[in-house]
């Protein structure tokens, strides 16, 4: 079963982390990432720029600056994981949460998965954030 783990946090806090603080969290998370890769569970994963960089399209003609909704916590990124069931997905989420305790992880089953189709798609992690 494919699940996506949506990572939420307050972006004003996360985006004012110092380089060192950010690197510390990313280092802890990468331990979990490597484990998931070894177990063959990790699909594509993204970290998003803050919602101030977002643009929202409402209907074909209406382009709005900003995110879909003003919320207290923002979607900061997501994982796609391939695990047996919800319990297994929760186990993964718990590991991520232990590495990044202030973030909240929403677990959502995936209904349709379209694989990477760009011919020159990177095979390695691309750190543009």
């Amino acid at each position: 079963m494919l699940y996506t783990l949506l990572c939420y946090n307050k972006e004003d806090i996360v985006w004012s982390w110092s380089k060192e603080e950010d690197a510390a969290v990313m280092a802890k998370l990468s331990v979990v990432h490597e484990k998931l890769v070894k177990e063959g569970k990790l699909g594509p994963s993204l970290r998003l720029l803050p919602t101030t960089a977002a643009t929202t399209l409402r209907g074909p003609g209406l382009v709005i600056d900003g995110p879909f909704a003003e919320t207290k916590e923002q979607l900061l990124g997501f994982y796609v994981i391939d695990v047996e069931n919800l319990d297994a997905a929760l186990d993964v989420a718990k590991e991520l949460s232990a590495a990044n305790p202030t973030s909240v992880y929403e677990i959502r089953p995936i209904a349709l998965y379209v694989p990477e189709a760009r011919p020159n798609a990177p095979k390695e992690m691309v750190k543009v954030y």
Partner: protein
Amino acid sequence: MDIAWINSALTAARPQAVGALLRYFRDMDRAEEAFQDACLRALKSWPEKGPPRDPTAWLILVGRNAALDGVRKQSRNTPLPPDEEISDTGDAESELAERLDGSHYRDDVLRLLFICCHPDLPATQQIALALRIVSGLTVVQIARAFLVSEAAMEQRITRAKARIAKADVPFEAPGPAERSERVAAVAAMIYLLFNEGYSAGNDPDRAPLCDEAIRLARLLLRLFQTEPEIMGLTALMLLQQARLPARFNAEGDAVLLDDHDRVLWDDKLISEGLALVDKAMRHNRPGPYQVQAAIAATHSRAATAAETDWAGIDGLYLALERMQPSPVITLNRAVAVAKLHGPAAALDMIEPLEELLAGYFPYFGARGAFLLQLGRNREARAAFDRAISLAGSTAEATHIRRHLDRLMAEAV
């Protein structure tokens, strides 16, 4: 419950919470005290009970209640209720706080920022006040960043507060015209703050001013998500800050943009900056911050100095010159012109500026460089000597001196 997390949550909540408390109390000192009080209670209560669902609403309510209790205690001398009772704001209260403050949120924070950059205050006081009140930096930290004693900074902030108390900033929600004037004043203050840190270069006490400016710009942008100039301002600072790791060599000397090791540039800041430039351009409402951001973006997009789109940069400086005519902008454009049409053309352009820029270090640095490229070494040396005498920091002076020594040695 991580204490570092609590501290960053308190800092993040500060502008909105102090802004709301200021609206209740209409007095800066009382608002700040109430917020301090709420923070102390948070540090006691959150580690035990876990953080509230809405830390900002919690801090506003607890701060307000604590201040009101303080008044009651003084007047009746009755004992305070136990801490748990005050601090226990359940979901119902949190929703109440949200209703109370949601609609005011934007204007509260804007008012707080605007008070700090009130036109009655000189620029240095504006920045100091914003750092103290909005960012919550301590007087010691601010004093260090401005290279003055703690007592002098304490006095500067007290004076600034006294002046704004008299200035009588209105507490009603501002109209659209007034709101956009406030936004522009705040943007100018934020850019001033950034430049204060940027010109200090690699000084560890002053460099954090840039981070603080970016944090305030992101805050302003979250309040005014559709303002292209605020996108431009934020992008400009992000793109300039991205180059910081390459701006100085191991000895701490300044490195020219042409000589930057671009691998050191911070990709994360660049992608955010470029995304904001893209968003701003869509609005077709150009302004000086957007144009400056577009110039910075042009540099960011060039993988090597040789790949820089100098014609594009020339055009952007020309647009900027039209928006705000200034000899400094013409001087910057001359650098692009030198790349495009050679040093003689650039020299012709800047010669008429000499009187206006007689005290401006970069003028003589650029003039020296153009003259040197033309082989007019004696005049170049005179320009470089003049630049050194005007340099604002040792890094600047060392940079010119090195330039001078190396190129003069080659020329002999």
